[in-house]
């Protein structure tokens, strides 16, 4: 496994930091979609526009293939990992995807961005593989039997708010408590590990949307295109997935809700 981190890999990401949800990927993401673009290919990221990439791939340019492979495989691997039970299986799904991509290059017609097409192949490959493995969300898993459904209902336990219709109804009864400072390296690492695990356990559509938007920095429009969903639906899935992950962190941190409830009620 290549142990790189987004935002750290030289040449992979233009700029790191910035607002949550915007990880500098947008620069090369946007560039990748820009079919007829001419501007600033040099300083916006490693990949030129789709037409140029495709032309070089069709010409057998191995360096270009390696670049595309190295740029997209981490995101593909993450997405695959949610469908299958092991890293090795995810590896095979990504491999099968790229083999299908190579075979399909001659037929690619720019009906979508190249990357969107590649990711769609991954999703189809992973689904087939995942159902063969008969992997299901464990019935005793994180979200089973809880108030969270895939796309309807409240994202925060209604029991945390004052009930009824009167004044104060809907106000926090059990407000969130402080989390440990994010500045400590150990906390930051634990947070990421916890989130990475919880992400694989989200319901499928939430997981895909959250992984693409927040982990890989795709735009809302791209996610709608790859999944064939409306902007509103995309936003609902994103919100529900994020809220579920926040709850996971809350339950994990020692000063979280579970620890405080005994005292504060």
């Amino acid at each position: 496994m290549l142990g790189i981190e987004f935002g750290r890999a030289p040449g992979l990401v233009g700029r790191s930091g910035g607002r949550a949800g915007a990880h500098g990927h947008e620069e090369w993401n946007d560039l990748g979609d820009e079919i007829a673009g001419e501007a600033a290919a040099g300083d916006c990221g490693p990949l030129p526009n789709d037409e140029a990439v495709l032309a070089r791939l069709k010409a057998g340019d191995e360096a270009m293939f390696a670049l595309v492979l190295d740029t997209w495989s981490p995101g593909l691997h993450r997405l695959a990992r949610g469908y299958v039970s092991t890293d090795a299986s995810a590896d095979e799904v990504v491999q099968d995807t790229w083999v299908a991509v190579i075979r399909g290059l001659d037929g690619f017609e720019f009906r979508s961005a190249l990357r969107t097409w590649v990711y769609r192949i991954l999703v189809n490959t992973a689904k087939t593989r995942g159902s063969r493995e008969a992997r299901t969300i464990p019935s005793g898993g994180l979200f089973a039997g809880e108030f969270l459904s895939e796309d309807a209902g409240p994202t925060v336990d209604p029991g945390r708010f004052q009930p009824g219709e009167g004044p104060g109804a809907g106000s926090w009864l059990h407000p969130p408590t402080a989390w440990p400072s994010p500045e400590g390296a150990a906390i930051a690492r634990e947070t990421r590990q916890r989130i990475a695990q919880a992400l694989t356990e989200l319901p499928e559509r939430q997981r895909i949307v959250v992984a693409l938007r927040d982990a890989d920095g795709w735009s809302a429009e791209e996610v709608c295109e790859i999944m064939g969903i409306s902007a509103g639906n995309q936003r609902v899935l994103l919100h529900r997935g994020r809220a579920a992950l926040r709850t996971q962190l809350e339950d994990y941190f020692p000063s979280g809700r579970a620890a405080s409830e005994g005292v504060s009620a």
Partner: protein
Amino acid sequence: MKALTCQELVELITRHLEGALGPAEEARFAEHLAGCRGCDRYLAQFRRTIDALGHLPVESISAGTRDHLLDAFRTWHAR
């Protein structure tokens, strides 16, 4: 216009972050947030969750798979 409750605000956060709230809704959102520690903290934790997602450890394909795929590309082009 009726003020937002905390329970309503928590469901609007992604729309707020995406810039998808209308001006009136956005004003209600800001007004509630300014006077509510619980919601302010909830929003901060929501952002922190998103931020952590943007810095997940990245795993990719194994070196062996990568080599195999480079071979496959070479073979495809030489066909």
